[in-house]
């Protein structure tokens, strides 16, 4: 707590003539005592204004007869905003204090965890983790290998899957009809169609379709065209009841005459918002199933695999070599949204960003090597995919070390191209390219100006010569000495240039070591520099005093002997990174970066660990370094993470809501915040992943896998928040909350859907659905779970006013008069949630 109370008390005492005083409590342990800002007397009543305290469930006004007296709840105290008005002042009860009842400590920690080691809470996770307890959740996330993850596995088991689309009836004139057909020949099982008026289906509207559960045969309601004449109701399967429709198409359809259709009565007026849903059974059938109203206003096309845009399907495409950057981004984003192993996803993004690479540079590289644009896209995408899959695997190993992760980066073709080692030569008099050498010191291991100088960069650049790429046979991908592939895709080509051109060779582009490029001089790494600028080969650099007795004074030079060829030449690179990975400089820099990621942005490089006057931040970094250094192997990532996530700093208010979301975190957390699982396996908020890449780029150019600068995207708020980027963030949440047919939906994309009313129906008792106060409380508590209900009063009041105001912003329109299933109700709730997500508070995590 702030130490300022006594001062305030004294000044207040004198300025308020001594008859009124506030006192910070003689602390009851669990209670916070907010700062009293002003004290006054209005109409004989004490008025006490106070500053909000973090994570507060309830504020109470207490009073006592003396400063040291027994403080007891003040009678008739009325709270408005952050100001109490007490009952008429009693002369024997003139000392006041405000007490804050905090959120339970474990609840706060659980919420902080969901903001830091996950991409934000979901309604279901919030309930689960609070019930589970923060310790169990942390243990679960720190051992992802024990947590089953099915995201990347295609599920071949047939199952019923629901499709739900919302749109606007667009047939002009005449009858309204619903058509279903397959785009080619084939068959499908479908069941339980519903078509209702409204932009969401609350289950209470009338189904406009007759015999849509196929329990009573087809005749009477449905008309079957000739190409579908083999279709029939069957009891082989049923989503509900005992029968479904087996759609059998001899040929593909595209219109009324080639479909099974039903005329809807009464006719629906053009422009009416409609929601259509139905179920189909997944199968290996190739022909997509189309179900639509006349026109294109309400239409769905489903591939019967049921795996459309699932991470598994996208990964299969990526692994086949046909995926491009947009697929990779979608896969990455869907993992962030959906994964159970949330911490692994957070860490993989951290690694991707720490060991940053720029796919457009890799694409240019392959574009200049005979490939066309699409092939260059695909090959460069694969380089990014492989390093990410390798990190994903590595993170499942309980003892994974920083060196393991660094090696994956060093060997990645994406990195070899990005920082120019691919073309660097040190043989003869050639000057090796310093790009990778510099960033290895500055950005990947030691941190800027931390334990190295220009001379070391020159030396490292020489050691790193020969690390290049080659097109090798598929089974040689991880053999850096493999020869160039000689397997021709078209061996009949007579022109030898064409025959041997890259695009005619089968294989993969992989890390390849070419000893002829290697610099053969002896290298003295981390040795001191003489005044003339040359290396003093007798004096290794010494770890500075500020690291404290555990490390200070130790030499950390490394000598690589001259004339190393073949495997001894490549070994120089590995020796070098093994040497650097566990120096105290690296321990410090990586620990600082992890603390910034997981706690707050106020950690920096360069603490003096040798003195005793350590801040909590300095202390935590030092503890991380000890955890790094003391394990059975050095540099075990989980030991460092455990240290941070179990620290007092992380558990305190100083760890809660102290960071602003990056655009990636903002977009993903928006979807997650409203994403609850429905009984049928669908969700109340969803995205295809593809449609989020746009906002993530626009809100500050966070271009996943394509950062131009090697320092990676920043964590701190000033880099991400400005008028321009806030505009994009607000546009995105507004768009995400729009029903699909609304102008402006393109910002978030029609494949990013939210159904806040669906969420209300699941989580709020039916009796409260029309209670503006209850709805306001539900959403403010859900979206700002670490704030504490008592601090959300002003938001709640605004929310209630919003719910009770018409769309014109002026007219009173009581929320309790809106029918729960109506589009007015739906829009009102959507509008409110969009605005709550547009506030300053949702920018934080």
């Amino acid at each position, binding site marked *: 707590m702030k130490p300022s109370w006594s001062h305030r008390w004294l000044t207040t005492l004198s300025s308020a003539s001594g008859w009124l005083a506030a006192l910070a409590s003689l602390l009851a342990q669990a209670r916070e005592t907010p700062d009293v800002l002003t004290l006054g007397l209005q109409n004989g009543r004490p008025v006490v204004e106070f500053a909000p305290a973090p994570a507060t469930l309830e504020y109470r006004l207490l009073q006592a007869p003396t400063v040291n007296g027994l403080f007891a709840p003040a009678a008739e105290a009325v709270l408005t905003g952050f100001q109490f008005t007490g009952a008429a002042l009693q002369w024997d009860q003139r000392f006041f204090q405000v007490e804050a009842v905090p959120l339970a400590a474990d609840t706060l920690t659980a919420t902080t965890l969901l903001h830091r080691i996950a991409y934000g809470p979901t309604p279901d996770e919030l309930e689960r983790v609070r019930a589970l307890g923060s310790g169990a959740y942390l243990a679960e996330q720190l051992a992802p290998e024990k947590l089953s993850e099915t995201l990347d596995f295609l599920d071949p088991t047939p199952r019923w899957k629901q499709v739900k689309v919302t749109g606007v009836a667009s047939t002009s004139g005449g009858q309204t009809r619903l058509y279903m057909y397959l785009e080619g020949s084939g068959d499908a099982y479908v069941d339980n169609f519903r078509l209702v008026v409204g932009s969401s289906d609350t289950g209470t509207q009338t189904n406009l379709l007759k015999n849509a559960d196929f329990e009573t045969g087809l005749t009477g309601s449905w008309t079957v065209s000739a190409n579908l004449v083999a279709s029939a109701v069957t009891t082989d399967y049923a989503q509900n009841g005992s029968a479904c429709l087996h759609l059998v198409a001899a040929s593909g359809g595209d219109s009324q005459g080639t479909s099974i259709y039903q005329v809807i009565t009464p006719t629906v007026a053009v422009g009416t918002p409609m929601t259509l849903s139905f179920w189909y059974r997944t199968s290996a059938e190739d022909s997509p199933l189309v179900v639509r109203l006349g026109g294109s206003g309400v239409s769905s096309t489903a591939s019967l695999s049921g795996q459309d845009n699932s991470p598994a399907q996208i990964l299969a495409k990526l692994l086949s070599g046909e995926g491009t950057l947009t697929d990779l981004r979608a896969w990455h984003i869907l993992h962030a949204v959906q994964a159970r192993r949330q911490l692994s996803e957070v860490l993989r993004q951290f690694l991707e960003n720490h060991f940053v690479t720029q796919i457009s540079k890799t694409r240019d590289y392959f574009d200049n090597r005979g490939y066309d644009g699409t092939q260059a896209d695909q090959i460069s995408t694969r380089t990014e995919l492989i390093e990410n899959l390798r990190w994903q695997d590595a993170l499942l190993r309980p003892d994974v070390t920083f060196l393991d992760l660094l090696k994956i980066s060093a060997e990645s073709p994406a990195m070899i191209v990005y920082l120019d080692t691919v073309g660097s030569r040190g043989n003869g008099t050639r000057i090796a390219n310093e790009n990778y050498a510099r960033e290895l010191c500055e950005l990947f291991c030691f941190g800027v100006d931390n334990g190295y100088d220009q001379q070391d960069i020159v030396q490292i650049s020489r050691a790193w010569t020969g690390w290049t790429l080659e097109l090798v046979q598929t089974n040689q991908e991880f053999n850096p000495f493999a020869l160039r592939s000689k397997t021709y895709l078209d061996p009949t080509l007579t022109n030898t240039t064409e025959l041997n051109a890259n695009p005619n060779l089968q294989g993969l582009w992989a890390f390849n070591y070419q000893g002829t490029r290697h610099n053969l001089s002896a290298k003295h790494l981390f040795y001191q520099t003489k005044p003339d600028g040359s290396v003093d080969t007798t004096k290794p650099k010494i770890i500075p005093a500020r690291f404290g007795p555990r490390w200070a004074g130790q030499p950390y030079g490394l000598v690589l002997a001259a004339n190393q060829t073949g495997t001894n030449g490549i070994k120089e690179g590995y020796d070098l990174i093994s040497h650097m990975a566990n120096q105290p400089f690296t321990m410090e820099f990586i620990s600082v970066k992890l603390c910034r990621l997981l706690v707050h942005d106020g950690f920096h490089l360069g603490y003096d660990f040798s003195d005793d006057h350590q801040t909590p931040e300095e202390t935590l970094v030092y503890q991380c370094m000890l955890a790094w250094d003391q394990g059975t192997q050095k540099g075990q990532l989980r030991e460092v993470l455990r240290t941070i996530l179990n620290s007092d700093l992380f558990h305190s208010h100083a760890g809660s809501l102290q960071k602003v979301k990056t655009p990636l975190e903002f977009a993903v957390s928006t979807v997650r915040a409203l994403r609850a699982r429905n009984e049928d396996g669908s969700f109340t908020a969803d995205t295809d992943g593809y449609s989020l890449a746009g906002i993530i780029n626009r809100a500050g150019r966070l271009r996943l896998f394509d950062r131009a600068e090697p320092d990676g995207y920043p964590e701190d708020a000033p880099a991400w928040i*400005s008028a321009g*980027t806030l505009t994009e963030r607000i*546009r995105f949440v507004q768009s995400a909350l729009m029903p699909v047919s609304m102008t402006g939906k393109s910002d978030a994309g029609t494949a990013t859907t939210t159904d806040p009313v669906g969420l209300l129906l699941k989580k709020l008792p039916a009796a409260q659905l029309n209670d503006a106060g209850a709805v306001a409380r539900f959403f403010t508590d859900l979206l700002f779970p670490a704030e504490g209900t008592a601090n959300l009063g002003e938001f709640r009041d605004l929310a209630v006013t919003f719910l009770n105001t018409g769309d014109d912003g002026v007219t009173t329109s009581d929320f309790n008069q809106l029918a729960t299933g109506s589009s007015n109700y739906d829009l009102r709730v959507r509008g409110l949630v969009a605005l709550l997500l547009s506030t300053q508070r949702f920018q934080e995590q």
Partner: protein
Amino acid sequence: MNIISRRSFLSHSAALGLGTALATLTDVPFVMKRALAEGSIGLPGSNGRVKKLLFIFLRGANDGLNTVIPLGDSAYGPPNRVDLEIKKDPLQSFAAIGRAVFPEAGPAAGVYDHPYGLGLGNGFAALHPALKFLAPIYNAGDLAAIHRVGYPKQSRSHFDSQNYWESGAPNDNNTKDGILYRAMVESGLANTAPLTGVSIGSSLPLILRGSKAAMTNVSDPTRFNLLAVPNTPQGNAKADTFLAAANRARFADKRDRDFLELQYGNLASSLQIFANIDFSEAGNTFRDDLATDGDTDYANANGGGYYLFPTTNEKNGGWRRSSTSTRADKYVVPTSSYDLFNRLKAAALVLNKTDALVAGVSIDGWDTHSNQVDQPNATGTTGSHTGSHANLLRRVGWAMYALNKYFNRYPDKCRWDDLAVVTLSEFGRTSVENSDNGTDHAEASVMFTAGGGIKGFEAGPLGEVRRTGVFNCGGTGDQSVPWQTGPTGTLFKATGRYLQRNTDYRSVLGKLIRDHLGATQEQLNRIVPGYANAAESLKAKGTQTRDNTPVIGEPDLV
């Protein structure tokens, strides 16, 4: 408790209310609202207008030695620069003293095919040919090139060094706010005027960041408005009411809350003001008054010169539409620069149409470790004068030319005479090229400043040169630390492969902030803390004692 006074979140979209709201925001002279501040930053001069600054940050470290090229130094060229060497024009007398060479394109030659250095008329320095559109500004006396710019204990990390350039405090990682931010705070307007410093880019750069006031960053001015559910004018108004009130809600202290509040406030005010400026493509009608680049075909057919802000192929140069041309590639800038020229146009519009004092953009991509130039082909149309670095320089050359023309031809609140344009880049690149046809991180580089009030080249009535616009790179009377030529000369002064500075970038920015924008020396001492320290020698000639390097102090620019 957030201590910053709260601003109301103003309605941005209700077109009905816009007129009144805008009047209060833009028509009241902010000087009236100005807090008591010394100096005259933001104060109108006798002509009723205020001095403004536009910065262009060349991020990634520009190779200054292939920008303003020391062709008078025999050590420039083989073996130090082979693939990268820009040569003297064998048909021109490089020694001639006078104006800069400005080769206009003939009908059979493309704009940028000129392969030789363009002599700057001081017998020593030359412009990279891709910068040829700087030549007319130079010859008009409105452009200065300051070479050998750096700072003591030069960091060769991009991120450190950019931070130092932007914070104005080299080697001081505790200075977390920007040099131009502090200049705006000193103006006394930063918390009263809705706009002072504006960047057009993906994020607010450090040079404009600080904790006491919000500067503005706009990413894409063409979509700078919010949406609402329902997305109707009334729905937007209802949403604005909610957001305005929500911005006033109180919460417990957290690390980023004051900052968020300032930026939300700035969002509200900038939405208001920018709604009244036409940032659209259709509004991009600004043209050169001359037959640009001697392209009379285009001028005759199109009634004037090229578009100043190339944002589409159709607005990019003129050769494509020349009926007599044998070439179809007369783009003035690479087609990948449209985003930049959209942003540059927006920055120019902001300075010209609002009371903002500073605006800026960045150009990325200068980190030319590899493939800095093209391989030469048989016909000589590619080579050291083409490639990635040349393409970046083309952007800079045309940007300056466009700004010069725009503020001369279309002035509203800002004229060319009121403006100083300045380029920044965090450091230079190695004097010796590497094995990858590129250059690595090094030390000093070059800055350009331009504007009606900038002192550059000046010729007397008989054509005699009274002063040149080139500082620290040859010539007469323009330098205090001579350029030493040869294999042990200036090119290698700093540990072997690096050009040594003899001007501190803070002296250039300080000169502009004080003598152009109007800070007092006392204000400048706060804006650029090094000014208060004699050992830094920022104002007058001397030696910077941190690394014992002689510097010329402030170049005589303004």
